[in-house]
């Protein structure tokens, strides 16, 4: 292990670190939106749309991100849709993450007590109001553990972006190894970088999970 090699590579890794963070953030926010929407549509069994979203969730969850990215990046230009690698990465991550988040939300929504929904209906709420005031707030708290696991999963999945040459952490490490043949040093920095991203996120999510649970149900 040569420390000079490591310190020389740090500015390059810092750039990659920022990109990984930014891609993760956009991917996670997008996934949460797509997931919540798709799960609510499935929950209220909106005709046609709910079947479509169910098909989407199953397709996205049961195929690897790598082949989804290859399809977006290499196959879509053939039918006239050319996008930059970064755009493909973000779309791919949201496609995958949205399905995982949808499953997470669905698990939470199905845990909302039926009497809560019956009471809402008795009060004359329509589906939109039920979603907004009853199902979503309680279901969200119940789905927190699954959503938190997905957040960690999605951050790690950004490493797959390296296959379409997005200069995030993994891609940067592989590039450096290819150029200077210093695998131990660069892999060491890579693992430490992921630890720096993920450890605080894991701790924060644990805290948030307890807070949301306490805030909603008081236990």
């Amino acid at each position, binding site marked *: 292990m040569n420390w000079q090699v490591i310190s020389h590579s740090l500015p390059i890794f810092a750039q990659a670190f920022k990109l990984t963070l930014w891609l993760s953030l956009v991917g996670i926010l997008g996934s949460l939106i797509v997931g919540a929407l798709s799960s609510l549509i499935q929950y209220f069994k909106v005709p046609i749309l709910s079947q479509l979203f169910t098909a989407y969730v*199953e*397709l996205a*969850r*049961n*195929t*690897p*991100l*790598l*082949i*989804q990215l*290859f*399809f977006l990046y*290499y*196959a879509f230009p*053939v*039918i006239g849709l050319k996008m930059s690698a970064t755009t493909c990465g973000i779309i791919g991550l949201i496609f995958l993450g949205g399905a995982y988040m949808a499953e997470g939300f669905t698990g939470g929504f199905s845990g909302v007590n039926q009497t809560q929904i019956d009471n809402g209906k008795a009060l004359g709420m329509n589906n939109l109001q039920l979603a907004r005031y009853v199902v979503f707030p309680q279901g969200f708290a119940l789905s927190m553990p699954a959503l938190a696991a997905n957040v*960690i999963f999605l951050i*790690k*999945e950004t*490493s*797959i972006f*390296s*296959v379409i040459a997005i200069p995030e952490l*993994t891609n940067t*490490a*592989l590039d450096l*190894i290819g150029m200077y043949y210093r*695998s*131990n040093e660069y*892999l060491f920095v*890579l*693992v430490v970088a*992921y*630890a720096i991203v*993920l*450890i605080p996120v*894991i701790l924060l999510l644990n805290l948030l999970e307890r807070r949301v649970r306490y805030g909603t149900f008081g236990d």
Partner: protein
Amino acid sequence: MEHSVINVLFVGNNFARIMQGLWTSVWISVDSLAAGLVLGTLLGILRTLPSKPLRFILRLYLEFFRIVPTIVLLYLVYYILPRSFNISWPASWMAILAFALWVAAEFSDIVRGAIESVPVTQKESGLALGLSKTQLFRYVLLPQAVQLELPATINLATRVIKTTSLLMMISIMDVIAIGQQIIEANNQKYPTAVFWIYGLIFILYFIIDYPLSLWSKKLAAKENR
């Protein structure tokens, strides 16, 4: 367009080669899972023992695999084994090693959780019958734990299968690598080959993983009832 798909797929032995690549992905998944489940069961049992240092070390092991993406694990094994330990294995063995260690970490957590959720009365009844510690695990805790952990285990299997898509990164001739070769060889004659070949591989993965996730969901629903 339709003709070009059929041509590309059946020119020479392209379809057979894709299936061969798929087979590589499947056997690597099966081997990694088998090795990982055995090691994971051992680690999971060890994690239910009262020894604090042992628990701490095994927890660290688990957390390491939680933090490091699988693609990075693959490269760690791929670069470090030959360069630092002078071990030159075929790439497929290295992939199996990396995946098995990862599966073992995840599975140890599933096993620990399942053993701990077997009702205490079961354990006490076993001890009251005069079972030894080993007998208790063998006849009481493990059989019940297996049932509890089955949906999560099937889920893990679907993840391992999806993760085999990374094999091409360490130059293993898996289904995607072979697909790439076919695309490159036919690019001039059939420019749409890329669409159909990657589409086919996408569907192949779905055909393998979807029944497994359905099965796991069904089992989980049955348990919750």
